């Protein structure tokens, strides 16, 4: 005797967290049942496989119907079809939008396009995240990206509002959008040591210090784009490395301040010019989209790697950056101190975050 039709509908929609997780992970009903069986549910509840199958199917149907609403979480709150207590709604949304960092790391800086979606098979293989789950997460990224792309104001707050995500998750999505927007290169081999968390932190510092919203909340441009005028202005900073006098003075100021304070003083003295050139030029190149892509590559290649090979400690780097940023204040004829500090604030934060093995 086979059941053709088998449904269970509660006035309050039943959400089984375990089944939700299995569904989010992209398992088929059969796989989910197998996994639940392995979890020992059968013995615990003294029930039958048929019951488990029926239960799993019910939940899956519910989730499929809910998915449409989960694409626009505010609708989930307003909809009348499913009566779900608020804390459960929050859980549904949060779990739906939660992502695997390994996957996000793979996709950082990539264009969220159909082409990328087609490559998800490989990504899935590399990260061990199920392909269906990969696609869902990719779609989430894309959906959030599309939704906030054109919006003004702080990215994270917009995301939080539109998708009702918890603040930390919203900040992570903001980072993903920021990367997707600026298309930073993150896939190079020498960047492999950086985690999603590192990049997300960098993105947050960059947005915090560089975006227009950071200066004027009513800014016209979306936070995801770095303000053009700011990037243009960064060219002005080149004077620090192109003007021989300024470069020398800058070096002596920093070195005198750091003498005896850092363990790698000699190396610093030897490399200061190269370092300074790298630090300033990274900013100067940001006007060109292609150069923007290399932002992190440059930082790693030209700053982090030399420092690491010279055995700098993170404390050394912090002290150096501190004084390196502060020194131009005392440089005669340098008029861009505010711009310089704004620029260096984000760069410093990024470097400090990225400076690990």
């Amino acid at each position, binding site marked *: 005797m086979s059941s*053709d*039709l*088998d449904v269970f*509908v509660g006035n309050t929609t039943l959400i089984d967290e375990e089944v939700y997780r299995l569904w989010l992970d992209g398992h088929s009903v059969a796989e989910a049942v197998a996994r639940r069986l392995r979890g020992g549910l059968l013995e615990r*509840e003294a*029930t039958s496989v048929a019951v488990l199958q029926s239960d799993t199917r019910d939940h899956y149907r519910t989730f499929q119907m809910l998915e449409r609403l989960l694409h626009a979480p505010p609708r989930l709150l307003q909809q*009348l*079809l499913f009566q779900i207590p608020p804390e459960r709604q929050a859980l549904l949304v949060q779990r739906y939008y939660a992502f695997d960092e390994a996957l996000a790391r793979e996709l950082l800086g990539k264009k969220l396009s159909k082409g990328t979606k087609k490559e998800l098979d490989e990504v899935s293989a590399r990260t061990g995240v199920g392909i269906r789950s990969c696609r869902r997460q990719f779609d989430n990224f894309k959906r959030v990206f599309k939704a906030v792309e054109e919006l003004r104001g702080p990215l994270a707050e917009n995301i939080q509002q539109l998708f009702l995500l918890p603040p930390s998750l919203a900040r992570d999505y903001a980072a993903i959008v920021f990367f997707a927007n600026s298309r930073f290169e993150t896939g190079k081999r020498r960047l492999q040591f950086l985690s999603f968390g590192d990049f997300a932190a960098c993105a947050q510092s960059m947005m915090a210090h560089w975006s227009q919203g950071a200066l004027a909340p009513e800014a016209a441009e979306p936070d995801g784009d770095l303000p053009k005028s700011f990037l243009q202005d960064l060219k002005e900073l080149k004077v620090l490395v192109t003007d021989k006098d300024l470069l020398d003075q800058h070096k002596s100021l920093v070195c005198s301040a750091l003498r005896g304070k850092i363990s790698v003083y000699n190396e610093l003295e030897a490399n200061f010019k190269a370092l300074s050139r790298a630090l300033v030029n990274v900013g100067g190149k940001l006007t060109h989209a292609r150069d923007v892509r290399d932002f992190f590559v440059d930082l790693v290649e030209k700053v982090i790697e030399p420092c690491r090979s010279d055995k700098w400690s993170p404390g050394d780097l912090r002290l150096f950056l501190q004084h390196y940023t502060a020194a131009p204040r005392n440089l005669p004829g340098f008029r861009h101190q505010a711009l310089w500090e704004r620029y260096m604030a984000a760069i410093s934060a990024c470097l400090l975050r990225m400076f690990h093995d």
Partner: protein
Amino acid sequence: MPGKLKVKIVAGRHLPVMDRASDLTDAFVEVKFGNTTFKTDVYPKSLNPQWNSEWFKFEVDDEELQDEPLQITVLDHDTYSANDAIGKVYIDIDPLLYSEAATVISGWFPIYDTIHGIRGEINVVVKVDLFNDLNRFRQSSCGVKFFCTTSIPKCYRAVVIHGFVEELVVNEDPEYQWIDRIRTPRASNEARQRLISLMSGELQRKIGLKVLEMRGNAVVGYLQCFDLEGESGLVVRAIGTACTLDKLSNTSAFLPACNSPSKEMKEIPFNEDPNPNTYSSGPSTPLKNQTYSFSPSKSYSRQSSSSDTDLSLTPKTAPSPQGPRIFLFPSSPTLSCDSPHLKKSCLLLSGSSIKPLHSSHVSPVVLRKSVSFTEELLLAASGMGSGSAGKEGGPFKTLLRQQTQSALEQREFPFFTLTTFPPGFLVHVGGVVSARSVKLLDRIHNPDEPETRDAWWAEIRQEIKSHAKALGCHAVVGYSESTSICEEVCILSASGTAAVLNPRFLQDGTMEGCLEQRLSWQPGFFSIGSEKGEVDFFPQSQDSSSLLGIEEASPPGCGFCHIPYDELNMPFPAHLTYCYNCRKQKVPDVLFTTIDLPVEAIVVGKGCLIQARLCRLKKKAQAEANATSISNLLPFMEYEVHTQLMNKLKLRGMNALFGLRIQITVGENMLMGLASATGVYLAALPTPGGIQIAGKTPNDGTYEQHISHMQKKINDTIAKNKELYEINPPELPEEIIGSPIPEPRQRSRLLRSQSESSDEVTELDLSHGKKDAFVLEIDDTDAMEDVHSLLTDVPPPSGFYSCNTEIMPGINNWTPEIQMFTAVRVSRLSNINPTNQTLNKNFNDLCENLLKSLYFKLRSMVPCCLCHVNFTVALPEDELVQIAVTAVAITYDKNQALQANKAPTEKSQQRASTDNEEQLQFPLELCSDPLSSQPFSPAKEVLEGASSHTGIPAAQRATSVDYSSFADRCNSWIELIKLKAQTIRRGSIKTTTSLEKASPLAEGYLRHRSVPSGTNSTVSVVKMTPLSFLPGAKITKYLGIINMFFIRETTSLREEGGVSGFLHAFIAEVFAMVRAHVAALGGNAVVSYIMKQCVFMENPNKNQAQCLINVSGDAVVFVRESELEVLPPQPAAAAQPTGAAGDVTT
């Protein structure tokens, strides 16, 4: 008389994209009522249009208001082609028509399309201005309140329970009209939805008229059903119990209703009108202003013609004291007074022969023959001779006769759809009575004269009534009707519980004794009455009480178990013993009923859901032959179902069934029977004996072994079940000392029954007239299967209990968490050569698996109980079985439960009281018997005053308060009849002016409105439950009945997730629409929710499916008890005085 319906379309949201090009929609709305249509402007290019329309006003008369639904259609404007419909909202405006319910309907409604389901939402505001004053308003049936709840609604008190109302309307089914061939499925579905909506409106209006005719103001236990008879039409029928209800807290808008007619009342010449002094001063208390407050001037003519209808049911019994005290005066007065009634009905009965076609079935007997109960009736009649009629003489006697006569003519069916009653209402319960009839459907030629259908039902009801008579009962409670249709064959079924009722509720008196008080103000009548009363009833009551030796201490929890029929002329072979509780009256060994467990019943241990399941193959046949073969099968099915129930009951060590519902479903090639009930162990009934297995071939050794093995298994199961359900009844009754010794015969029988379980089978056989209950004879493999199947019922996992009644016997500490659900399964019985046995097994597995899956799904709620588990079986096609279950899971506090278990009896007592206080706010009020020392009732003195008024000798009163009051009541009852006579003669009716202060009105209103508004922030939560109450909450207001019918169809079944996906979505949509309607009425819960119909049809080859769902319930506002307490004094204070006012002034 006109009313003005006002509708405002505010906004829409989440509309579907109708214009692919722009991904937007140009939406506008058509608002239609009757034949008038208004349109909003087009709100271009938006999925969230803000129409903010003007108020559309419809001027209509009340008949239209009652019948028609408000129809709101959302469309997409298209300049070049026809506008596309997005979907519709039907709003039943009935709740706005009585002032007590909602005042405005306002909120977001899902926009529903029969093809696409819910497509966005629309915000609508609806109001009704009634131009008429309320007095005139009463002429229509607009003001009659409807409740699905099968008990007296929680915030009301029953003043009078008038009795049975029924009506049916028929029409052609649009699906089968010729036009259906050329119109779209959508148009056809909408025509059907609209027609059914219209028909139920009409039906409700007609029932309302009947209620007004009976001078009631409400219908309780309203059950409306659709019979989709296919080609032959569409029948909408409803039954209910007409009542006069009285709101407990006078906060509602009912007050103006009372106040306004009061003016007119003065104009009415009331001879019996009490003089103002007596009136206002004392009796005061439970004075029923509302009783007749709406006696409309115009309906006098009607009243004069039918005023005796009220009494019709009543003059059967002497009034006995209310409340628990009712049990002090059991049967005997009742019987003697009953007689005239019985005599009449006897005549009536003889006229109506029971058709052999119908199988008749009276529990606890199986297949009762048409018993000769004339003797019994004669007996009763003779008793009556000595009673009232003999001595009464004169006007009283004739009046009585007139009334009974007219009662039988006009109120032919003393049926009550209620399943829970005010304490004291139910005097005795006889057993289940049921009747079925197989009919061939033919086209209904004239929809305005649905005579055949009416006649069919009348026939069945007549049969039910005669069964009840045979059980010595004058009424049937827990009454319900159902049909099962397959092609042109239709099985009509009716069942109920034969009972003897306390007449006080049936006549114009209340528990509070307002009646006698009212009467006692008229010294003239009173003096006569008192004399008669003393003569007629007093001695009897004395007799009975002395005879029975019943004192205050006697527990009231067993009265209803005592047999109402005569022991010497039992209508069926039953096994009587003395009540194990009071030791004074006879009780049967088992009791089957269709009602809920009475609150006062003393139960040992917990209850459990018991189901009997049965399949019977049937040859495919046409018309007559088909009907004949079905009706031939029915008795066997009834018998088997009954046997199964009995065996399963014994297997659980229990002795009574409540909420019994036997469903026989007819299909093409088989019949299915499903009986569900809640088994309990009633302390008053004897301990059930075990089950014995007897083999036919005793000489075969291995066989013997097998048998004894089975026997052991059964015994183990019984023992296990007893433990599981905590059935450890108190010590054997024989050891009880101090109670009257049972007469020898009885005693010996008791002893024997005890030994039976251990004794040999053969002897057992002889000693019982009902071996089917005790002994299972295994004479062939079939029987073996039966025994096996008995043992396959798996008990629910630990932490779970289940029942199909309102409250789970033995659990009283509910926590507020509830989960209502509907589960539907369709299974294919894929046997090539099905036999009854394999089918039985399949069906059994299907049900068991379904239950198992429910337990699993709800495991997070443990410890919990599934209450009101309601199974419905349908056979949509060959080999397809559809089972739908609706129930509610309620969690309970385990710790308290454990405590309670230790003292079961104590607990059950306790429960009765807590129930009264916590859930049944109404019975509490009822309990405020003037005599009982309720702290807040000044009533006691009042009544004393009243009784002194009545002139009962002080000495008599001194003997016992109850005593005098009883006499008092008797007196007043007689007076009532006198009074009636007066009333009838004069053609006027008695009214009382309203004593309530109007002040609480506004306050109460604010309070009510504030409740839902608090949750308005997002989507307000609406609880749904099939029960009549919400645990841990107090229902403060009933907003009106929800009765909705939806059709959903799809032509892309696979794309919608197959049949399961389709139905899952549809049920969720139905829930959503019910919730939205309730929320728009300002409510936060639906109680007594029921899915009455779920007809699912599929055609997988065409990728199509269609489903019809009909649901109903009562929209209510509830307040959490914890909130009530937590909220600072204000609301509490508000509640207090209103409660008090309700008690004192009503």
